[in-house]
């Protein structure tokens, strides 16, 4: 499998802040590669370097074997970028936006028209194609934004937090759209703060923090390393909460939290131990009626706790990172 994206020992500082600290990874062709990390971990900086918007202080970044520093124009012919904002013109229609980007991708007028129409079709935006983007919903804008990066038929798609600011429905829509893209062999690098998104989309996940890789693997491998999952059980009768807590005590690795008014208890269990069915069975044996059970997907914080041994601090990192990028 040839590596489509190669990042080797990349370093970048903004003033006194170290954004990338020897970052190294490769992403395979026709696969989805997720860069997972909290705000300020260096995700956006990495994407901007790959998109030739920013130069690294040292190290190498290449797309399709072409060095981004030495041949930026050749790289730009291969990539499509969708940044954190939906970078589409509000006053133009969806079709006009794509047509303009197509022309700037050096397509002929005819090819740009054809490509714009095709992309709108794939985005299920054909009906809205002739409406100004101003009238689009957030999810439609985001799809159009990703679509704008597709009109040049790029080999590599760089998506910086594609689902940021989308409601759950729009997010699911975007995910299914991105999965379809893979069918034509596009390589996708996406950044995200949500393990769930990486889990849903990516073949390989690389977790970064402070500009360094701290864990790599397939979503399944990473989850196996996670150690715990969170289980939430709601009882039919809140008065049985105390008894229920004692019943499942053996499964929990941390103290059980209970919410008496809601009749709900929450606890962490070892992953891979089938704690959820076990808990249901134990409660059933004790004749405690269960109304609802949920296994909560591990959050990025859980990953951090298990891999780094400390929680991520998105709040602090957010401030630092964004300020620096603006300067």
């Amino acid at each position, binding site marked *: 499998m*040839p590596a489509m994206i190669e990042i080797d020992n990349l370093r970048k500082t903004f003033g006194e802040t170290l954004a990338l600290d020897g970052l190294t990874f490769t992403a395979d*062709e026709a696969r989805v590669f997720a860069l997972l990390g909290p705000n300020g971990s260096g995700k956006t900086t990495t994407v*901007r370097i790959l*998109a*030739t*918007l920013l130069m690294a202080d040292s190290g190498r970044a290449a797309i*399709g074997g*072409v060095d981004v520093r030495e*041949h*930026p*124009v*050749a*790289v*730009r*012919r*291969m*990539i*499509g*970028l969708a*940044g*954190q*904002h*939906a*970078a*589409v*013109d509000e*006053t*133009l229609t969806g079709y*006009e936006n794509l047509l*303009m*980007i197509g*022309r*700037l*991708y*050096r397509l002929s007028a005819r090819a740009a028209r054809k490509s714009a129409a095709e992309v709108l079709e794939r985005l299920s935006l054909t009906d809205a194609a002739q409406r*100004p983007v101003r009238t689009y919903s957030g999810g439609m804008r985001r799809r159009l934004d990703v679509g*704008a*990066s597709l009109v*040049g038929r790029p080999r590599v798609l760089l998506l910086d937090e594609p689902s940021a600011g989308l409601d759950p429905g729009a997010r699911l829509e975007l995910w299914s759209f991105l999965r379809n893209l893979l069918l034509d062999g596009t390589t996708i690098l996406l950044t995200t703060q949500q393990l769930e998104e990486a889990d849903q989309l990516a073949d390989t996940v690389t977790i970064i923090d402070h500009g360094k890789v701290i864990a790599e693997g397939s979503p399944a491998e990473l989850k196996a390393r996670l150690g715990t999952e969170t289980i939430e059980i709601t009882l039919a009768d809140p008065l049985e909460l105390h008894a229920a807590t004692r019943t499942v005590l053996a499964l929990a690795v941390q103290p059980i939290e209970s919410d008496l008014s809601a009749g709900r208890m929450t606890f962490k269990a070892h992953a891979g131990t089938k704690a959820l069915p076990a808990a249901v069975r134990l409660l059933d044996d004790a004749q405690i009626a269960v109304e609802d059970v949920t296994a909560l997907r591990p959050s990025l914080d859980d990953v951090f706790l298990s891999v780094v041994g400390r929680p991520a601090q998105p709040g602090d990192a957010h401030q630092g990172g964004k300020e620096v990028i*603006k300067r």
Partner: protein
Amino acid sequence: MTTVTFYPDRLPLFSRLTDSVVIARRGLLGTFRTPQAAVPALISPILFLVLFRFVFGGAIHIPGLTYVDYLVPAMLIQNIVFGGMNSATGLALDARDGILDRFRSLPTPRSAAITGRGLSDLALQLVAHLLTIVAGIAIGFRLHVGPGSCLAALGLLLLIGASLFWVFAAMGLATRNPQTVQSMTPPFFLFLFVSSAFIPVSTLPIWLQGFASNQPVTVFTDALRGLTQGPSAQQATGHPAEYFVIASLAWCAAITTLFAAAAMRSYKKM
């Protein structure tokens, strides 16, 4: 098996021009689609012209020229400054919303995003200029020269617009914040009002006259007065048209050199 495709590292010879036109088209379409912003921008110069002509016109005596003949060239320079604020705000918005990042990630000349905006804004300024001249003619403005001199005036006007565009582009790209751009208006009012634009410099306090007679707004307006009103303008401006035209060209060269470099530096650093 991967197909090996050759991706050239160069752009076509004329892409700077063609891609600027593609981006300029976006600016023009956007303006037509938002008449609530475009119409006031086109109406306000006419409003200013009529107000100044009838409110101050009676109080201000200009040697050799009627006040409306004196005023219209100043309104044209004012169009450039007010239009320029829109260029700065537009570029700041594009920078803030990631639109410039998108353009910069495409195989298009990096400068095209800026020159494209310049082209569309100059086209809009031209419309504002024409409306101002027509309104001027309606209230008594006359061209007292031949067609050659009129064309020279129009050429100079566009050159001034293109040069000052870089000042506003530098503002928008350096701040990347439309609010900050708006807060930077006061100096432009200083340049507009402490000049020969609306009143003769000789009526200003002595200590202001040195600045007022040599700063670009005075030089530009007096050049346009010389080119549109002929020799009689000299009584009002103090020098023949040639003097102001050469001084204008020098100012344009200096402003473009300085601010185009500043704008491109901010743009590359983004």
